[in-house]
């Protein structure tokens, strides 16, 4: 292998690619060639770096210099100054909102400083399409240890002792799940990796599979050894084409290296993995429904027991875990249960990956130890609320979760405490909401999502969600009745009781938690016909502040319904009757002269 004096880790995650990071690569190659540096400096396409908001991102090693928001224009200057003359370019570094000077080192940036990487241990450091780089970072040593010096029951004990719990959301102890499957009887046993990440607002599974597919494969192979399975399926949703592609490549590479297939590492153990693409149904994230989908049946969940551990895919004992859970396994085997269980709280050990998104400054993917407070996540890592507005709530757990208000910001995060607060851990989406987010609208959004995704098998879920949606829509339109909130609470209880799977069972969380913490917002919609956040269309109107308006006529040009008229350099007029409340004027106005009332 050739030696290079510098490595440029260019993020090729979906976020950065959509910000044209591959064009940056082209320019870099061209410039490096121009300065005859192509044999001294290597460009590496890595998986998602995590700090998606600042893309495209490149980290230059040695020195761990963090460059962000690169454009093709910046590249000639950057190559000449830094890579040729050795002077890092300050203008392209990241300046945190609260500081004045740019922070050159990635590890010193607030967004990265508080993080603790286990599942994401290789992010931004390796080329996910090259198994050699994974191995060079200590990859597959956990598998070697598990296959050569541990008995299956010892592997299970190690995982049990580590306290690892299912990262898909429900938090069932992984070691115990493995033990059930290991003890179950069946001619054949199967392993499934659930990468059907359906929660809106969450993308950690995508990121792990795209940036480090081998960690998932290694974890699955260790699990297969522990429970005695020889075949596995990875169920990836079809919306993630890059993840499917990378995983397929990774499987082929592992086979070439004798780390998958027949006689792994010469121990005689055989294990094979098949990638299965989903076809777009949220309910497929539920395990029994995922199995039905895998078998080609219509993906409706069924009653448990029997659990998949007794009767899963093709009626055989099946162990199903989430991507993030599998990615944790190799590190636990490598470093031991004791090391892993030091992190976290009494009941929830280790770290958790969250996608921190919504109205927060630093959006992206983070991995933090369990027990960290929400305040730390939002303000230290996330850098605070966008445009320094007022924080209102944070939504965790996707459509099965709830909204947590400001009073609970010092809540340490673990499975139990989030459940007590009326939300759930879920797969790890964290959507920050500010004063401009209407909580009734959020509840309506989730109910709308769920009513579309309900498979329709249980009447309570199918019909109940429909009724809730209608009630919530009426409230949003200002036609709500005083009794509606009570009626919603009653419906929530009925749906949770009468549904077979978790989709219906937890569907009430977004509604109940918003009623619990934001009852006053419901009331101002119902009693005063007002939407305090200025979101619900029927209850708002746009106004022009005549003092701030400079008469630039940008709004006039963009208004789709010709509701705004005016002369240059004169305050414009808005005709309320013609206004369709699309909000374009609000969006384009540079002088904040458009108000929502």
């Amino acid at each position: 292998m050739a030696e290079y004096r510098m490595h440029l880790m260019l993020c090729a995650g979906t976020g950065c690619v959509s910000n044209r990071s591959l064009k940056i690569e082209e320019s870099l190659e061209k410039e490096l060639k121009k300065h005859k540096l192509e044999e001294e400096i290597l460009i590496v396409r890595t998986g998602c770096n995590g700090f998606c908001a600042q893309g495209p991102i490149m980290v230059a090693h040695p020195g761990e210099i963090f460059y962000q928001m690169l454009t093709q224009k910046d590249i000639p200057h950057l190559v000449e100054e830094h890579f040729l003359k050795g002077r890092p370019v300050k203008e392209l570094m990241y300046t945190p909102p609260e500081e004045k000077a740019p922070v050159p080192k990635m590890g010193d940036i607030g967004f990265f400083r508080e993080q603790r990487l286990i599942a994401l241990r290789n992010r931004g450091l390796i080329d996910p399409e090259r198994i050699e780089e994974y191995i060079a970072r200590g990859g597959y040593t956990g598998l070697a240890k598990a296959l050569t010096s541990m008995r299956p029951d010892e592997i299970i004990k190690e995982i049990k002792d580590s306290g690892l719990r299912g990262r898909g959301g429900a938090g069932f102890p992984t070691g115990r799940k493995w033990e059930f499957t290991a003890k179950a009887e069946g001619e054949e046993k199967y392993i499934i990796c659930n990468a059907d990440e359906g929660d809106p607002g969450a993308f950690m599974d995508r990121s792990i599979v795209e940036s480090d597919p081998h960690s998932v494969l290694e974890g699955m192979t260790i699990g297969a050894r522990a429970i005695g399975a020889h075949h596995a399926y990875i169920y990836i949703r079809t919306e993630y084409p890059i993840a499917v592609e990378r995983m397929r490549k990774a499987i082929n590479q592992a086979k070439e290296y004798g780390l998958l297939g027949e006689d792994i590492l010469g121990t005689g153990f055989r294990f094979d993995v098949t990638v299965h693409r989903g076809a777009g149904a949220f309910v497929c994230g539920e395990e029994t429904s995922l199995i039905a989908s895998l078998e080609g049946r219509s993906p409706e969940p069924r009653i448990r027991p029997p659990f998949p551990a007794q009767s899963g895919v093709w009626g055989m004992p099946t162990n199903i875990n989430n991507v993030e859970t599998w990615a944790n396994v190799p590190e636990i085997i490598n470093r031991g249960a004791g090391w892993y269980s030091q992190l976290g709280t009494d009941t929830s050990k280790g770290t958790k990956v969250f996608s921190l998104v919504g109205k927060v400054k630093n959006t992206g993917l983070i991995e933090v130890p369990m027990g960290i407070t929400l305040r730390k996540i939002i303000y230290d890592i996330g850098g605070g609320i966008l445009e320094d507005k007022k924080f209102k709530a944070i939504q965790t757990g996707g459509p099965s979760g709830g909204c947590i208000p400001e009073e609970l910001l010092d809540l340490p995060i673990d499975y139990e405490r989030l459940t007590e607060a009326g939300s759930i851990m879920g797969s790890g989406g964290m959507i920050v909401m500010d004063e401009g987010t209407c909580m009734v609208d959020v509840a309506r959004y989730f109910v709308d999502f769920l009513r579309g995704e309900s498979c329709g098998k249980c009447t309570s879920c199918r019909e109940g969600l429909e009724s809730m949606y209608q009630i919530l829509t009426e409230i949003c339109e200002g036609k709500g009745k005083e009794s509606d909130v009570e009626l919603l609470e009653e419906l929530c209880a009925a749906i949770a009781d009468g549904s077979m799977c978790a989709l219906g069972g937890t569907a009430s969380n977004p509604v109940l938690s918003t009623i619990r913490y934001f009852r006053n917002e419901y009331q101002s919609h119902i009693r005063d016909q007002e939407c305090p956040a200025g979101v619900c269309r029927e209850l708002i109107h746009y106004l022009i502040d005549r003092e701030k308006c400079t008469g630039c006529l940008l709004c006039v040009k963009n208004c789709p319904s010709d509701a705004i008229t005016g002369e240059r350099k004169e305050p414009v007029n808005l005709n309320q009757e013609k206004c369709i409340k699309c909000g374009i004027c609000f969006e384009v106005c540079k002088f904040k002269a458009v108000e929502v009332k």
Partner: protein
Amino acid sequence: MSNLSTMQKGKIASVLVIGGGIGGVQAALDLAESGYKVYLLDQRPAIGGTMAQLDKTFPTNDCSMCILAPKLVDAGRHQNIEIITMADVDSIEGEPGMFKVRVKKNPRFVDESKCTGCGSCWNNCPVRNMVQPDEKETVKPELEEKDLEKITELMGDNKDGRGTLVPLLQDINTEYGYLPQNIIRYVSTDLDIPLSQIYNIATFYKGFSLTPRGRYIISVCLGTACHVRGAPKILEALERDLGIKVGQTTSDLNFTLEAVRCVGCCGLAPVVTIGDDLYGKVTQVKIQKTIEKYKGREYAKAKT
């Protein structure tokens, strides 16, 4: 009017209720109580339908078996009700008041008059749970040569046995942009999978379309992060701009507008994908400009 008059003449001798779920059972009971002779027909080996599988009913959460069981017993005992199970309707002729229905009764291989439903045959059967094959479509549709070639190739990739239907449909959907009807029929006969099952799958998942779609699929992400950052307004702006509603295709087959649950790019919310290109942090004004580019592209392509 003629129909009504025949009915008024009282020509109704008996009623056939098709489907023995709770609705069918209740209808049969009501009719039987009013003095009609009722035939209650069900495809399955027993009446009761889905409700028999449920624990509770909506919205009162009453025990579902407690409601259903007495009605089943009533239907079974009623003098005026004749239950025909494991049967299909073959044909219906006539007009209201004067129907002739041919019913095909499938073999049960058990003497119903003697069976007590003790269930020990079920427990002792060596080939239990064997599925009765659905009647398959026998006429294989003719395909054009190029379609036949394509489909044979796609099926070749997906013929390794169990669970191949979904991947195959995905490949067809990618190849054609939707699932053409003649091809689905062909697959059904060739793979020996009932058409009903294929449609069940094809309509369940969001990833399949039964109608042709545009050259560029515009997907507006409606994930939570995108929602709070204004995705619904982006969708409306696109609807206005293209003159179509979500789910529709423009008449020139250039664009199809779709709303998707989440594309997993939440850090860049709100997000729109057009074909294979992803656009992050879009605004109503920006996206309209972007769309113009695609309109232009198609125009340029058509010109050359």
